[in-house]
Each structure stands twice: as structure tokens, then as C-alpha cells.
């Protein structure tokens, strides 16, 4: 374990992240990039982009509260150290997505009220399930909830968004790219650190699998809400991109689905299937069994 944890030192984090893939970026992207005119010049698309960004901020705020809250519960200094780097990663994510909200025209003083107003209620419940475990000082459940479930979800959501943005909105795509690199580290820590703890405490499996099921329910409900509300703006964005020739030659394939032409139902399905597949794989690696939510969303 000590050797694996040495891979998560502050020194290594400094070299990989701020001195590595974030070098020469400002708020996670190349300096000088801006939100595209297609979004800023179309009120429906701008509002839809604000609503989407709010969900990212809500998720990252939860991750920040969870990772910082887990530092004290960590059983060893090396885990505390890793969670310290994750705390700053998550704070950076909150910062860059908040900056995007401001770039999209939300006044700084209105950021919190906008997040409160537009955060999806199911995403809020998803966060509450996790933060309850963190508040109880439950390190094993907290890390599974945070580094496997939340981060696993975020990882796939960001990948999908990056695939749809890399040709149409390089600023947002670059922001997501650095975030994905962070999430990959976080998921890796969760898998590596928790496996041994689950083996030492098999009695915890039932409670943790129940938490995973509950979080999965709220996650799927969030996906359903967000995709069902985004059909018009997605069509509008595609139309504008096609009019401007931005889809010519664009590569928007993700897990076998062409995101340039897929319906919202297809996009929701590919995202949900990808995330659930990841959950099953990652939970299996740490000795837990994926548990389906009680009511399919």
C-alpha cells in the first residue's frame, strides 16, 4: 500500500498537475479563448449553457465539500495527503466552472442565487446522500461515494461534453480536458485505497452498496431531467453549427454514438450505460457488487 500511496504525494501532484497539464493555462484553458459567438449571440443557447454549467458547479461543490471533509476521517497520512490534493483540484473545478458562468453573462454577485435556482433537485439529493456519510466521518463509504460514484459519473459526463465541444467550443473543451485528467487520478485513488479496506471490513458492504444504489437513482433522475429539457437548445445549437459549417468534418463520436446527430434519448442512454458500466467495473475491482436502483428512472 505504501508504494501505491507514494504515487499520490503532493510532490507528484505538483509535477503532474499545476506544473504539468495545467502549465500555461488560465482558468483551465489557453489564454485568449472565449465562448463562441453561436452561444453568446443566441439567448436560448446562452441560457441553456448557463443551466448546464450550474449542474457542473453543483457537482463540484459537492466534491469539494466531500474531499475536504474526508481528510480528517482518513486513517493514514498518505491518504490525508492525497485528499488534500483532491480538495484543491475540486476547488479549482468549482472556480473554473464558476468563471464560465460569469463568462456566459451571469453577474458575479448573482452566481450563488443562479446555482441555487437552477441546480437540479435530484443532483442536490445525490450530493446529500454522499455528504451525510462524510459528516458521519465514514471514510470507506465517503471514498466510495466520492471517488467511485461521484467521480465516475463526472468523468463520463465530462468526456461526453468534451466530445461535443472540442470542435465547437475549444475553450470549454480545454477546461474539461484538465478536469478529466484530475478525475482520472481521483478514481484511481478510490479503487486502489478502498479495495483493501473493504476486504478488512466486509460488514460494511451492505451499507455502502445501498448508498451506491441511492446515489445511482438520483444520478439517473438527473440525467433524465437534464436531457429531457435540452432537446430544443440542442437542435438549435446543431442548426447554428451546421449553418456555419462547423460540423463539416467534426469528429463527435463517443462510445459508438455520433453526438452530432443523436437524439436526446440516445445521448441519455449512451451516457447512462457508460456510467453504469464503469460503476460495475470499478465496484467489482474493490470487491463490491453494483446494485441497481430501486426504481429505474
Amino acid at each position, binding site marked *: 500500500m505504501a508504494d501505491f500511496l507514494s504515487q499520490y504525494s503532493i510532490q507528484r501532484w*505538483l509535477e503532474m498537475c499545476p*506544473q504539468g497539464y495545467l502549465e500555461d493555462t488560465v482558468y483551465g484553458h489557453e489564454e485568449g479563448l472565449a465562448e463562441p459567438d453561436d452561444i453568446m449571440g443566441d439567448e436560448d443557447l446562452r441560457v441553456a449553457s448557463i443551466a448546464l454549467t450550474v449542474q457542473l458547479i453543483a457537482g463540484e461543490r459537492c466534491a469539494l465539500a466531500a474531499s475536504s471533509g474526508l481528510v480528517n476521517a482518513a486513517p493514514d497520512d498518505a491518504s490525508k495527503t492525497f485528499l*488534500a*490534493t483532491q*480538495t484543491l483540484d475540486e476547488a479549482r473545478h468549482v472556480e473554473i466552472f464558476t468563471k464560465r458562468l460569469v463568462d456566459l453573462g451571469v453577474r458575479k454577485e448573482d452566481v450563488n442565487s443562479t446555482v441555487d435556482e437552477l441546480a437540479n433537485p435530484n443532483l442536490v439529493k445525490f450530493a446529500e446522500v454522499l455528504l451525510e456519510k462524510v459528516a458521519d466521518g465514514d471514510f470507506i463509504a465517503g471514498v466510495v461515494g466520492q471517488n467511485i460514484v461521484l467521480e465516475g459519473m463526472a468523468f463520463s459526463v465530462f468526456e461526453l461534453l468534451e466530445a461535443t465541444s472540442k470542435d465547437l467550443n475549444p475553450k470549454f473543451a480545454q477546461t474539461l480536458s484538465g478536469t478529466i485528467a484530475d478525475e482520472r487520478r481521483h478514481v484511481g485513488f478510490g479503487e486502489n485505497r478502498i479495495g483493501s479496506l473493504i476486504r478488512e471490513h466486509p460488514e460494511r458492504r451492505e451499507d455502502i452498496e445501498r448508498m451506491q444504489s441511492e446515489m445511482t437513482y438520483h444520478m439517473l433522475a438527473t440525467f433524465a431531467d437534464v436531457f429531457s429539457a435540452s432537446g430544443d437548445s440542442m437542435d438549435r445549437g446543431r442548426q447554428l453549427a451546421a449553418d456555419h459549417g462547423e460540423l463539416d468534418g467534426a469528429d463527435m463520436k463517443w462510445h459508438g454514438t455520433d453526438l452530432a446527430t443523436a437524439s436526446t434519448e440516445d445521448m441519455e442512454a449512451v451516457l447512462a450505460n457508460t456510467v453504469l458500466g464503469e460503476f460495475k467495473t470499478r465496484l467489482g475491482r474493490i470487491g463490491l457488487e453494483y446494485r441497481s436502483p430501486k426504481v429505474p428512472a
Partner: protein
Amino acid sequence: MRPRPDRDAEPHLLAEEDFLREVHSFDFWFEAVSGYLEEQPFGHDPDLVETPMDDVARDSLITTLCNYCVGETAALEASSGLVRLAPNHHSRVFLATQVVDEARHLEVFMRRLEDLGVEDPEAEIDRRANQGLEDFRSRLLELVDRGDWDAAVFAQNVLLESMEDTVFRFHEQSADEITRQVLVGVVADERRHLGFGENDLGRRLAHDPSGRRRLAEVRAELDPLVLGSFEGVYRDLGIARQDQPELGRHYLDAVERLGLTA
């Protein structure tokens, strides 16, 4: 070095809210730390060779570093607990940067212990921890756990940080070169943390006289633990009383600036 947004602007000329957003950001933090962390993995020039030291000096340094680790662990646990209590976004981001700073301090001190031949630093820290410092750590975490932002920021970012600032800078003067370089990088961070604590509390107390009275009571309770810890560390460093710097002068200066004198 990576650029900072609006880097041509002088932060101190910004309006208060914009100033706080600017200085309490990931970019500002990274610009602040990268100067002294680049080229110095684990806090010092990797080409430095160990200064010869006898067993007594080595043992004394190990005890001192173990107690630095106790202080840094307290700061790591408290700052991470304070993230959820932060009253606004920029304070939350600043505290997240402080969490990483404190974890780095713990890491470089523990690495230094390994360099000095300590096989299990966590166990050694438990063995050599100063009781006064452990008591202070418990009290600090109680303040965090009960969600008392003002008292916890005071105890951590004013009291603990000024104690460390004083002790580390004093230790720098007599330390071997590797330890000295490690301490220089740590002190640079501590000064940022101290600045945040004074700035945040100063603004809040300006509008809250009762808060000042309450913090004066917290201070009266924690003073003996802090000053006792100072004495303990100086003793471990083998410094005769007449040669010790005035105990906690920085701390007392900070307390005076905040109007928390008895």
C-alpha cells in the same frame, strides 16, 4: 511561469471584493508557490548533501521535526474542516489552497525524518509529540467541529500560523542547509495563511465588537497551550532560555492588530 488573469493589474488597487477574488484563487496560489517549489522537490535542492551531525543533534532535530508534523497535521485537519464552513466562495478556494500547503508541509517534514533515518515517521511522531501541542490540536479541532468559523480561523490562521512562523524562522538561522531550505518554503506559505486570517478576521471584527470579546476569551484559553508549545520546541532545539527570542512576539503583535489584547 504560467500567467495570471489580469496580471498587469496591481491587486491592491482593486476594489475589496475583486481583490479577494483575485488573491484567493488557484492561479494566484500557483503563481505564489511555483517560484519556490520549482527545482526543489520535497522542499530543497536535490543535490544538497547531508551536513554531518552527531547523534544528539540528530535526535534533537528528529524530536523537533516530529512536533512540526503535529502542528502541520493539526493545520491540515483544521483547514480541511474549515472548507465547508467558509462563508463565501473565495474563502473556500483559499482554504483549499491552504489544505494542500499544509499537506505539503507534512510531507516534506516526514520526508526529512526519513532522510534522518526514521523508518516509520508516523509512529515516531506519536512517540515524540509534545502534549501541549496535542492539546492545542484537540482544542482547535473542537472549534472546527462545532462550526465556529471566527474562533477556528483565529486559532489556526493567527495563533498556530504565527507560532510556526516565529519558530521556523528562528530555527532557519541554526538549521543544517537541507532543513533550512525546507523551512524557508514552509514559512513563505505560513505568511500567506497568516495574512488571510488577519484580513478575514479584521474585516469581520470591525463590524462585530461582541465577536472581539469572544475571541479574546478564546485567546486567553489557548495562550498557555501556545506559549507552552513554544517553550517545548525551543527546549528540543537545545536553546538556553536567555538565547530564546521573545516568545510569540509575532503572535502577540497579530493579536494586538486585531484588538484582542486582554
